[in-house]
């Protein structure tokens, strides 16, 4: 792992900015839910911030990503605008999907956020299609499929990895292994220790990295992106991480042994990266305070805009079912 290319100082700072945005935003969502102002199923991403931040640091707006219900971190890292996000969470017309999709179907093609699915595994086959399109277009775009450890046991995983490998598609499969699938631990659903070894079944490169370590995560993705852009095919990256909250807001996660959870939180990657930036002299305390204040202000503004916006008209039920509005 140590011979991966490492992020430079500017990149590290960028990764931290994204991670902080994800963390603060997640906290704010939960706060608004707890206050009864947002009503929805919400899948917190706390603990997993470094993964998408390191992924996105390797991407451009033209690259595609598909993600899952637990995907707001992936989206924010990729540049999903806060207003479009909060509008959608609040079910308002200024939401990216005009309130029709909600938290499990957030979409923002302008930044490559092509699909968010609520069905386990289903990000993968569609990412294969985006990879096929990217290959046909020949502009070097890559397609990212995010999914969880639990999803690695569903049929769509198998079919997608095999097809991507067979066709040498520029797809990067990112398994965010947070050790739990709803209430089921990784060990209770999988006999193997590492999902990444499954890549061998398809003649694909596969690696397991510490997803909470920006060096490893950034480096592994960089290698995979370069491989993909060079037309050398897909990669499976298993990013080890931990889910700090329950499966969704409201789940107290009693099935996670308290010590396991405490140990993971002890190693919280977001403050850890902050400390490192300070220690390495990448940024000063005041810089980071300023950055964080800016992020919080931006979230504030998006929340206010969302709640100020209109709810959709019921006429919208007939729109977007097909291209032409239904009679």
């Amino acid at each position: 792992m140590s011979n991966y290319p490492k992020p430079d100082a500017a990149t590290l700072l960028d990764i931290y900015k994204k991670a902080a945005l994800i963390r603060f935003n997640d906290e704010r969502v939960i706060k608004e839910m707890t206050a009864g102002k947002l009503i929805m199923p919400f899948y917190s991403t706390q603990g997993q911030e470094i993964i998408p931040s390191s992924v996105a640091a390797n991407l451009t707006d033209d690259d595609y990503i598909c993600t899952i219900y637990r995907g707001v971190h992936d989206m924010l890292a990729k540049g999903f605008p806060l207003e479009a996000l909060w509008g959608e969470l609040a079910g308002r017309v200024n939401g990216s999907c005009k309130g029709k999709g909600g938290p499990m179907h957030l979409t923002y093609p302008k930044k490559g956020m092509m699909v968010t699915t609520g069905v386990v595994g289903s990000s993968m086959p569609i990412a294969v299609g985006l990879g096929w399109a990217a290959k046909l277009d020949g502009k070097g775009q890559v397609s990212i499929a995010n999914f969880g450890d639990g999803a690695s046991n569903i049929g769509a995983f198998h079919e997608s990895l095999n097809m991507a490998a067979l066709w040498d598609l520029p797809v990067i499969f990112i398994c965010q292994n947070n050790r739990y699938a709803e209430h089921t631990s990784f060990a209770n659903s999988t006999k193997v220790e590492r999902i990444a070894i499954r890549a061998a079944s398809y003649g694909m490169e596969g690696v397991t990295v510490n997803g909470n370590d920006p060096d490893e995560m950034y480096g592994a993705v960089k290698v995979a992106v370069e491989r993909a852009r060079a037309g050398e095919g897909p990669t499976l990256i298993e990013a080890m991480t931990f889910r700090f909250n329950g499966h969704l807001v409201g789940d107290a996660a009693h099935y996670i042994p308290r010590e396991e959870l405490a140990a993971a939180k002890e190693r919280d990657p977001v403050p850890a990266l902050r400390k490192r930036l300070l220690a390495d002299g990448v940024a000063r305390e005041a810089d980071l305070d300023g950055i964080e204040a800016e992020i919080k202000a931006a979230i504030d503004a998006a929340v206010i805009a969302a709640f100020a916006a209109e709810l959709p008209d019921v006429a919208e039920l007939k729109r977007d079912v097909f291209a032409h509005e239904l009679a």
Partner: protein
Amino acid sequence: MTEPKKMNMIEAINAALHAACEANPKVLALGEDLADNEEGGVIGVTKGLSTKFGTDRIKSTPISEQAIMGAAIGASLVGYRPVAEIMLMNFVTVAMDMITNHAAKLRFMSGGQTNVPIVIRTMTGSGFSQGGQHSDYLEAWFAHTAGIKVVAPSTPADAYGLMLSAIEDDDPVMFIESLPLYWTPGEVDFKPVPLGKAKISREGSDVTIISYATGAVHALAAAEKLAKDGISAEVIDLRTISPWDRETVFASVSKTGRAVVVHEAVKEYGVGAEISAVLHEQLWDKLKGPVQRVGGAYSPVPFSKPLEQAFAPNPASIIAAVKVALG
């Protein structure tokens, strides 16, 4: 278990599963997060089963719906009676081959040498802001499939009684649990409810409202309001959608001469279409006007509250349809 008791549908189904496992060692259960180590199901419907009957019989599974259904089918072929959970009804889409090409057909295709006595439990229903991939009622697909029965209770007592009968039935049964009805308490008398037998949940003389699941609850509410306007509605809760109880429905519609069919599934090509078609075919001379249908909008289930509410039938839309039926 003979004293009637007030409980909600979660408790009622849980009690039925306990009773069935107790009575017959061949009864098994499997599904994601089903065992007590995983909290006995995401909503707790299967709580206690694995502790009482052991994790050989009561199994939490990986996220592998095809394998879940296959495991149930295979075990059922040699004498077991597995109750398999597909967590939400939209996820039956990844296991349709097992259900419709195999479970429903093996008895016929084997010339009666084998049979598939399984129960497929699945939850669904709009109203929880879960959006397009977590709320669909798909009973019409299964009703259109020869060889599988379809059940959808609206009360805890029926849920208990139908679950017992479904497990005892020698053929596959799709058992639909309506999320919005889970927490409503009701008196449970712990008696089996026969498959294929509808219930007249309110007597009336002017019009027959035929429904099941959430629709049956809305229909009762509508009937109460109609009564205040001097309209006497008979409400039939089908309970079993396929095969449905023609006798009870024919008797009622022969009496009232008018019928409205209600369900939350998309109206077009839904269960209401079949019932309407049959009523016209069979009771042409008794009908005073065309059978009316109330169903979900022709759209995916939307996220935003006003749209989600406009999607599904409710007492007001049923009342409106009754008024059309009355001419």
